[in-house]
């Protein structure tokens, strides 16, 4: 009973917060219906946004994969330390212990001369000719794992190993790695530039779509202004329109990239088999997906905001 009494006394208008939220919900549904009612425009706009965003998205994934592969290389950076032939095994083992105790070294592996010879005989196929040799020409070898993977630190370590007594050659083969990293860095920056450019493109596409939308609904805007609608009220459905375009475009771009990667995964697996490597194709993580969708949605909002700010205020009843 008390409830009906309270109800009767309630004012006809909802309180401001409720009214505000209510209109947001209405604008959201209204803009969604508008999009649904004009499928051609929507599909075209969304497709353009999707294709545009799939480029930086695809490059990003490419880079992520390259990064993963090169990361393996990076962690496998080793220095091969070939010892003086005059050193016997005990001296060599002592030297290994000495190197292993160094701060900048994370691990060592000792390969004796005999072991080296056996390996060589097995792997090279020159077994017979090696047997003709009177003595073992191979030195003891210590494989050193650097503690840090920074190229400068690794090179320093190689230099100091080289300077140790009993060491013939400390060999570090990283030049090709450095080249690779430089190329990756160039690619990375290119992706940043491409992303910025294409984000701008999306901003313009959405801005233009919303601008046309505003023009198409010129009469409606005037009528609602005359009925007492505030600028914010009129703005809202257009902003939601931009949000929808951005959101749908983001999903399309994600689909395009995923399908693209599915298409190249076949040959890549064959390549994997040929190289006996176990590199796996990385696709978008859940986090990447969320970032992509959020970014394109934000671009949609920003694009429509620009269009609305530029064009809505110019429309006044006369």
């Amino acid at each position: 009973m008390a409830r009906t009494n309270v109800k009767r006394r309630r004012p006809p208008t909802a309180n401001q917060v409720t009214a505000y939220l209510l209109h947001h919900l209405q604008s959201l549904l209204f803009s969604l219906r508008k999009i649904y009612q004009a499928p051609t425009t929507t599909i075209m706009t969304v497709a353009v946004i999707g294709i545009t965003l799939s480029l930086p998205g695809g490059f990003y994934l490419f880079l992520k994969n390259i990064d993963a592969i090169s990361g393996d290389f990076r962690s496998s950076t080793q220095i091969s330390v070939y010892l003086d032939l005059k050193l016997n095994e005990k001296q060599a083992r002592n030297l290994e212990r000495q190197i292993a105790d160094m701060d900048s070294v994370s691990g060592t592996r000792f390969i004796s001369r005999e072991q080296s010879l056996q390996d060589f005989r097995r792997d090279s196929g020159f077994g017979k000719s090696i047997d003709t040799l009177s003595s073992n020409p191979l030195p003891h070898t210590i494989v050193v794992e650097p503690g840090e993977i920074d190229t400068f630190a690794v090179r320093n370590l190689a230099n100091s190993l080289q300077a140790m007594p009993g060491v013939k050659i400390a060999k570090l083969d990283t030049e090709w790695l450095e080249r690779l990293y430089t190329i990756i860095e160039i690619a990375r920056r290119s992706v940043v530039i491409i992303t910025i450019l294409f984000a701008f493109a999306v901003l313009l596409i959405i801005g233009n779509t919303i601008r046309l939308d505003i023009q198409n609904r010129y009469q409606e805007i005037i009528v609602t202004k005359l009925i007492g609608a505030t600028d914010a009220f009129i703005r809202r459905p257009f902003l939601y329109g931009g949000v929808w375009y951005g959101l749908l475009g983001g999903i399309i771009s994600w689909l395009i990239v995923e399908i693209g990667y599915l298409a190249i995964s076949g040959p890549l697996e064959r390549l994997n088999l040929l190289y006996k490597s176990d590199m796996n194709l990385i696709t978008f993580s859940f986090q990447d997906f969320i970032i992509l969708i959020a970014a394109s949605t934000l671009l949609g909002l920003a694009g429509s905001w620009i269009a609305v700010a530029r064009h809505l205020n110019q429309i006044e009843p006369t």
Partner: protein
Amino acid sequence: MIEFHNVTKRYESGFEALKNVSMQLGDGQMAFITGHSGAGKSTLLKIIALIEKPTRGQALLNRINLNNVRRQRIPHLRRNIGIIFQDHQLLFDRTVFDNVALPLLIQGYRPQEIAKRTRAALDKVGLLHKEKSMPITLSGGEQQRVGIARAVVHKPMLLLADEPTGNLDPVLSREIMQIFVDFNRVGVTVLVASHDLRLIDELEMPRMTLNAGQLILNDLEPAADGDRFGSY
């Protein structure tokens, strides 16, 4: 409700649509503005609806000076007014119900309240059975009645109508005018611009006649002396 003190409106082209017009429309009154097309009827209504501003003189709505209303306040002032256009200005992408409900939506009414009041307004103009129709399927007279329902749904203090019967035949016109008279009976102030002199004569309502921007006939009591408010 409405006061004009020596209002002059000159458009950018140099055309003077209103020349030194003074008039006054009290709360709950109903009046007609007549005159040839181009005599300034629409301009007068536009000043009240805050679409145009006077070039000189003062226009007041509910004692609020319309000359210097801030842009952000305009929507809120317009909510006190119901405007009916000659070409009804319905939105053709939504139903009759949604058209009529729009002012309530704008003002943040609760959904149940919107449904109740919208149906009441449609009932008043005899179109409750058409609430789900699209405006394009209605006849001209029905469309105009939907326009009236939209103008009155939020119970404005003032109804402005610009040639509301311009496109209608005499029978329908009489019907429409009768709706205005009915609203006036329940206390709404009504100002109708029309050149349908025969119909106005029938209704025996006060009349203001404009000719080339000047008020040449005024059945209403004259406005207070403009100088008192300081015309500029």
